[in-house]
């Protein structure tokens, strides 16, 4: 399918462009394939934005609660700015959404001690549903960090076999931004990026369909917790470790190249003598 190939090429390009400019990068590519704009935007991971209702209650704005230029609040199910004929989750799903938000908020408190969380659900044609569990946290100016932010985007696709087996497929992306204050020694220093992981698991629901909503929240929540924790540990080694390695293998520290050559020289001698 031609559109699939073009979108695939766009995503390839986005992987290479600076993630600090994700909005601009996406807009540039969308201008080349305007017919597929919607589809492309849904596949892009970028830092999450925050909106609020008329009382100042905040919620996360994302592709998953967007209709046109408006965003739906998970607290009161209203769109801001208000629109007619918008998309809403079914009544059943909305109940699940309210419960999920309450529980996920506790998860956010335990792991993030701050920040903002939102869960959004939507119906699917195959009898299942999908949901996005989102977290945005900003780091205040501290100890040399000018700005920093973490955005978790957990998208879970939920299917059933029609009986009691439920399959949860999660795709989690964590988008990090870190800007170091202009520093005498180093100048302007910024590391920004996304890491993504997928996981799929199936479970048998308790007999009789009792408390199925609580079951979903527990299973989804556990998956989110596992994958986020994994990515957090990866981020440390990739975000910092890997970018550091790349720099230091391009330009060596003073004296390092000499000591590498010395060691290689000694190894060579050793081999000759005893090899």
């Amino acid at each position: 399918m031609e559109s699939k190939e073009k979108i695939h090429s766009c995503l390839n390009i986005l992987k290479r462009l600076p993630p600090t400019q994700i909005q601009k990068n996406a807009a540039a590519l969308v201008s080349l394939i305007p017919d597929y704009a919607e589809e492309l935007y849904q596949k892009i991971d970028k830092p999450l934005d925050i909106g609020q209702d008329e009382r100042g209650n905040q919620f996360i704005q994302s592709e998953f609660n967007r209709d046109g230029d408006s965003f739906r609040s998970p607290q009161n199910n209203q769109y801001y700015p208000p629109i007619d004929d918008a998309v809403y989750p079914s009544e059943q799903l909305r109940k699940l959404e309210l419960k999920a938000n309450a529980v996920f908020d506790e998860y956010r408190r335990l792991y993030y001690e701050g920040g903002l969380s939102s869960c959004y659900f939507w119906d699917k044609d195959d009898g299942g549903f999908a949901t996005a569990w989102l977290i945005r946290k900003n780091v205040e100016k501290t100890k040399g960090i000018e700005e920093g932010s973490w955005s978790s985007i957990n998208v879970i696709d939920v299917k059933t076999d029609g009986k009691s087996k439920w399959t949860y497929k999660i795709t989690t992306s964590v988008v990090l931004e870190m800007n170091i204050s202009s520093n005498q020694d180093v100048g302007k220093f910024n590391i920004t990026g996304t890491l993504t992981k997928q996981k799929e698991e199936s479970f048998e629901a308790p007999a009789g369909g009792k408390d199925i909503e609580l079951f979903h929240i527990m299973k989804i929540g556990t998956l989110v917790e596992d994958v986020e924790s994994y990515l957090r540990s990866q981020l440390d080694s990739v975000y910092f470790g890997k970018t550091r390695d790349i720099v230091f293998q391009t330009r060596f520290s003073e004296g390092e190249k000499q000591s590498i050559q010395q060691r290689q020289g000694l190894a060579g001698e050793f081999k000759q003598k005893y090899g």
Partner: protein
Amino acid sequence: MNQGEEEITEVQQYEKVVKYIVKNTPFGQANLVIKDLCKIIGNINPQNPIMLQALKDHNEEHLALFKGQSTQILTSVLNSQEDFYVDQKNNETIQVDHEKLEIISRSQVELPSEPDLNQLRDALEQQLNLYLSQQFSEKVCGAYVMYQGDASDFTFYLGITAKTINLPNFFCGSWISTWEVTKTQLKGDLKVQAHYYEDGNVQLKNVNTFSEGINVDLSAASDSAKQIVHAISKLENKHLTGMDNLYNSMPDIFFKAMRRPLPITGTKMNWNENVHKLVANLKQ
């Protein structure tokens, strides 16, 4: 308007986007990005003038190194002409293939030349090559020296670069520094980039500027060159040490402020307990 003319106009519309995207691509990945752009736009190939121009700009911005049989040249905005590059030292114009990073041909040309400045240029080149061999990975590194002006009023332009390109393991990096030297001042710009894209897209972007007073004596070319390159190497070493310190301290500071590995209780969240407690609260 016939079919051919329509296509050209459409492609020109894409020119701005192509320029932006190729300009911002990490060095080592431009050819791949251009291939993907051609797939997206359709009816266009990498040899199209718009693609080639974008690639040329990309190479000049990243001080791309072009190799020939017995010579090599770094390309930058400074020595760039429309169809060729100027090699001041060897009095040549050089034509290159931007996709293959190869020198295609060279022609002799007569360029304005200042013997006093030539001496310093050659000494600088020698010192820079020594510096490169000591501090940089051989894989893709190079330097250039050019000058403008005359003995009474001169500016030397130096460029130093090294690149790491490892596409099979999803990473690239570049170190690009450009310097201006007058009789009394040394000014420089440094760009450090790293890109890792296995299962994601993580990029480091670091820029710094330098400025230092120096004293250049044209009659003592060798000593002056040593002084200048020594100043450059000291500034770059200091920058690298600064990066090392940042890398040692940041993970703790940054990640502690972001997300705990575990809640303060030391155990994972008890979903069962919390689900029942919180949903019950909701009903009230």
